[in-house]
């Protein structure tokens, strides 16, 4: 597994924890345990995304990595083999 793959997997893992716990919170908005879980992984997810973007380019069009060149077009798109 390449360094890019490892880092992307980390982003996907934390991002999934955020998606899944957010959905649980939709039907359990007062669950303190779920809220703490969500907040923990939200933070880890943001850190992992930032770390990924510094080396491998923007994950969103609003990313700071689009500063000097429209880097959005540079890295492979998610459905491509090279992106995974």
């Amino acid at each position, binding site marked *: 597994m390449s360094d890019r793959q490892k880092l992307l997997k980390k*982003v*996907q893992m934390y991002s*999934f924890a955020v998606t899944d716990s957010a959905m649980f919170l*939709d039907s359990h908005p007062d669950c303190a345990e779920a809220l703490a879980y969500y907040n923990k992984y939200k933070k880890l997810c943001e850190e992992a995304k930032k770390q990924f973007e510094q080396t491998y380019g923007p*994950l969103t069009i609003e990313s700071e990595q689009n500063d000097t060149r429209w880097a959005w077009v540079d890295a492979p798109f998610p459905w491509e*083999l090279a992106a*995974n």
Partner: protein
Amino acid sequence: MWNYEKKLEYPVKIKTPNPTAAKIIISQFGGPDGELGASMRYLSQRYTAPLPEVKAILNDIGTEELSHMEMVCSVVYQLTRNLTPKEIKESGFDVYFVDHTNGLYPVAASGTPFSAEIFQSTGDPIADLMEDMAAEQKARLTYDNILRLVDDPDVRDVIKFLREREIVHFQRFGEGLRLVTDTLDAKNFYAYNPSFDVKR
């Protein structure tokens, strides 16, 4: 509105093309219980949902289904790369190829194009949520059938992830339905439609 993240929800990395597998998996893009229909169903139904929790569930599951549609399309895209005319003919992929080459077009495995007739948006939260729970089960069993037919571990890994999400969504919709029925007349859930008869 939506923001796009330039990543898949779960990795798709298929080393070996296989048009025969692509031919059946495309059903989860444009077929009767596919991800396109799922996202359109929930994102259409959410407007008249009676409770904020149910609006959130429909909104967020509908959004996740868009990312599942993207994963299914990525699987089909990667399974149909670098094919020779011989492979296309022998695999039976030729009947799709003739109209779409290896472009992604929402169809069922049988070749029927995607149709909004596969889902409902009734404006009645009990009917809608019951349909949503059934839809998750139908998508789950379609993934089960794909797992019966496909051997490639690269493909199976992705399909197993998607299958598990159907089960989680089914659970969330069940909770949404319970929240709705809890706010109704316990003697007769159908005494009125909380999305229509209650003025806001």
